[in-house]
């Protein structure tokens, strides 16, 4: 078993499975967020459910955090291993001649997404934990919409979010389809998986960026 954990292929599979899990989470996150543009009441209802449902809070949320941690810790470990494997750099290395930029720079797009996650956790998760467990404020199923919109009032935050979504798009562009290859799944359906990957990696981050910009441009006026 220890041999399996150290094995290069097992590590690839860990990256693939945690990555796919995060793709599923992104889809769910986007589905709820998009309701903030369509119908604030639905957004409030879903947000309240997610914030107070014990299964979501005490089972799914820790699994999600574990998924994120595993993905980036394994990503860093593999990056270090891969850098060591070159054993010195080429004087001239034409990486662009044989592999797309996004596939060669997953560590950088991943690092930007990770930095964004720190800000995002501070913005919403830390605030939520403080509201519920430190301040022990009463349940208010109507607060989520205006709290979210208020977050996007500052221009700098909106821009940081949009930049992170662009890098998320690049990360997904390579990572999503790549995870199937890592798990040994390369067959007649692979072209369809690659097409879906391109659609997903544009539509979802673009949608997130649209939501951030929409709330920035449509502040709550009282």
């Amino acid at each position: 078993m220890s041999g399996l954990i150290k094995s290069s292929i097992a590590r690839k599979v860990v990256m693939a499975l945690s990555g796919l899990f995060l793709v599923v989470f992104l889809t769910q996150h986007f589905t709820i967020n998009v309701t903030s543009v369509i119908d604030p009441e639905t957004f409030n209802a879903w947000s309240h459910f997610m914030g107070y449902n014990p299964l979501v809070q005490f089972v799914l949320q820790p699994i999600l955090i574990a998924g994120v941690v595993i993905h980036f810790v394994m990503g860093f470990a593999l990056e270090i291993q891969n850098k060591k494997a070159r054993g010195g750099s080429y004087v001239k290395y034409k990486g662009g001649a044989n592999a797309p930029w996004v596939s060669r720079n997953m560590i950088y797009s991943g690092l930007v997404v990770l930095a964004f996650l720190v800000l995002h956790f501070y913005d919403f998760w830390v605030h939520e934990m403080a509201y519920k467990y430190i301040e022990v404020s009463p349940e208010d199923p109507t607060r989520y919409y205006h709290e979210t919109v208020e977050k996007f009032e500052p221009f700098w935050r909106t821009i940081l979010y949009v930049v992170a979504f662009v890098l998320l798009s690049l990360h997904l562009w390579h990572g999503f389809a790549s995870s199937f290859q890592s798990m040994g799944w390369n067959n007649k359906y692979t072209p369809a998986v690659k097409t879906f990957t391109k659609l997903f990696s544009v539509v979802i981050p673009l949608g997130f960026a649209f939501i951030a910009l929409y709330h920035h441009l449509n502040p709550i006026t009282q």
Partner: protein
Amino acid sequence: MLVDGKPNNEQQTTNNYITMKLYLKIWRQKDASSPGKIVDYTLDGVEGDMSFLEMLDILNEELVSKGEEPVEFDHDCREGICGTCSLQINGEPHGPDRLVTTCQLHMRKFNDGDTIVIEPFKAKAFPVIKDLIVDRSAFERIQQAGGYISVNTSGNTVDANAIPINKHDADEAMDAATCIGCGACVAACKNASAMLFTSAKVSQFALLPQGRIEAVERVQNMVRQMDLEGFGNCTNTGACEVECPKGISLTNIARMNREYLSASLKG
């Protein structure tokens, strides 16, 4: 082909009949423990129909005639089938051409006045022996770890041709077996991963009934040896497939991953 003593129109598009002056930047390294460096050479009179290795032969003749140490490089068949030649040429293994080895790369692919950077394949698992020669015996150890089948030679051997194999599998096994083990996949990969090589050697047996008997141990042992040699991990950039002179496909890596996961589940 010359028409009235001049190149015809077709040939004018190539550099066959133009002698070139090239500026070479070549990695020189005395031995594995010495630091290496790029040394500049200027070579005149290079013809387009010379192979890349013939160009280096000319350079070496000039160096020897001047009493200088020739540039060491690997070569054997010079027919693109043995996998001995290597070289990172202008940042790409086996140079800018596709589906050819360095020995089959012709100087017509370059232009008069070009600067060409020539380095050894670089990987921790491929230590430099001298100049442009690297030690690729790590590949041999991976092969020895499981790249074989056991055949009964007691006189009751079943003729391989007597075992029915569907054409698709036979073709894929043959495609995988065309890997010549040159190491271009490792040289091209940003992670110096040997997964294309190892997967080709796993696949050529995994697809055939003769290879199934030792399939579980084979993939586990070969992957373990690959990891022990210090190669990097595949991140599916696809650089190896593009640079492979034999066009070995990434589907082989997916197959190896499947074989490995299935072998691990079987214990």
